[in-house]
């Protein structure tokens, strides 16, 4: 393997290390809310610094490769996609930390029954993250497309939950604080799903050289 390819492999490995951390942060933060686990929520907050550190290291590696190796074609697309995916992962890490904060706040409050649709939304958002990252690792355009298809479902679930929580608050004004924390959790899960969608779009660019952002499906290929 050439030196450059070894460096690319290192970049990918670093990105996978970060994605594993972020996936676990999302999982733990959601479990923190659903199971009222203070331990899991605290783990998320403790690991956030490592995610931030990895973001800096990955950007540094990617920019060095751009500057020193002048990559072209698939290599260029891989590195630019890595920079953007890195950014999305770091944001997902932040959002998980927010969810963990909500989990800690909700510990002190009595449970709202039923726990709206949080496990459901969280399950879908996590599966989008998993698929987007698998699509990146396996350069799988079909899997990336399947992530894009799920984004609307998450948006619809969020809207439905918002309505449900609003009517809950009208009926139970004494439980507005819990409802607001749950609202924030749902909002953050929906944002995580948005970042998973961004990653899937970056994977499509990397694999096929096509830009599908902002529903721009008609723009098929670079320069065509």
């Amino acid at each position, binding site marked *: 393997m*050439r030196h*450059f390819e070894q460096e690319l492999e290192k970049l990918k490995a670093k990105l996978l290390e970060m994605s594993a951390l972020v996936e676990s942060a999302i999982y733990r933060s959601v479990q923190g809310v659903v199971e009222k686990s203070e331990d899991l929520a605290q783990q998320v907050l403790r690991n956030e610094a490592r995610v931030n550190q990895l973001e800096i290291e990955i950007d540094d590696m990617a920019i060095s490769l751009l500057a020193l190796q*002048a*990559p*072209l*074609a*698939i*290599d*260029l*697309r891989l590195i630019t996609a890595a920079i953007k995916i890195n950014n999305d992962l770091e944001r997902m890490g932040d959002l998980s930390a927010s969810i963990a904060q909500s989990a800690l706040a909700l510990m002190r409050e009595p449970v709202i029954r039923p726990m709206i649709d949080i496990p459901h939304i969280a399950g879908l958002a996590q599966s989008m993250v998993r698929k987007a990252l698998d699509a990146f690792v396996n350069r799988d355009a079909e899997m990336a497309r399947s992530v894009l298809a799920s984004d609307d479902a998450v948006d619809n679930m969020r809207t439905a939950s918002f309505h449900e929580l609003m009517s809950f608050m009208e009926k139970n004004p004494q439980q507005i604080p819990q409802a607001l924390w749950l609202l924030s959790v749902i909002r953050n899960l929906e944002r995580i799903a948005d970042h998973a969608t961004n990653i899937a779009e970056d994977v499509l660019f990397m694999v*096929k*050289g096509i830009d599908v952002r902002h529903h721009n499906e008609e723009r098929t*290929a*670079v*320069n*065509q």
Partner: protein
Amino acid sequence: MLVATQGQPVLNPAASLPAQAPAPKTQPASKLIARNINFHYGSFQALHDISLEIPTHRITAFIGPSGCGKSTFLRTMNRMNETLRNTHVDGELLLDGENLLTLDVTDVRRRVGMVFQKSNPFAKTIFDNVAYGLRVNGIRKKSIIDEAVERSLTHAALWSEVKDKLQKPASALSGGQQQRLCIARALAVEPEVLLLDEPCSALDPIATLKIEELLFQLKEMTTIVIVTHNMQQAARLADRTGFFLLGRLIELDDTRRIFQNPGKKETEDYVTGRFG
């Protein structure tokens, strides 16, 4: 055509346009068109069935590994290969629609100039190097030659550096200056096409940058075809890039596409260094 006549405003401009008018194509005309060019050195076939178009006032770059045929094809375009024995070319090379393979060779070389890898100034003064082509073409009048020499040196971005030493030998110039002198010499006869075979391979980065900037300017005046081993140079310079491999043209497309998202696996392997 939409014309709003006085007192009669066009109420619905869209109504007078054909539905879904096609976007106007801004593709420039082709200066050179190659059709089914085959070239043999003796029994060795160096070019296989090359067909392509070179757009006018654009820079087209040819890339590919050594021996892929890109320089052979370039030399075919001003019939330089005919100076070699035992070679054979067939097919058509249309320069503004005329097959240059059947035109008068002196005329072809005046219209299609060439600059080589190694700068090759004549053992003459700077002035006489640039004036050479004009004199060969029968121009004797001093004022015309003076004017053409200054213009060519200016276009080659060399005038300010040599204007006070035009009678010095060309060999006194630096490598980068000599290469620009060769470009000035080629420009003096106002070629319609300028072919450059690895023009920067012996130059340092600063001299290379000067030549590249110069070529950007020159494409306003002429059509440029450059062969280069330096892919970044092709990426920086060219509007269109063609990839040659084993005597065949694998792909010719917009430069951005060749380097971001090439259509052919062979091109991708070559530009990413996974070739061979």
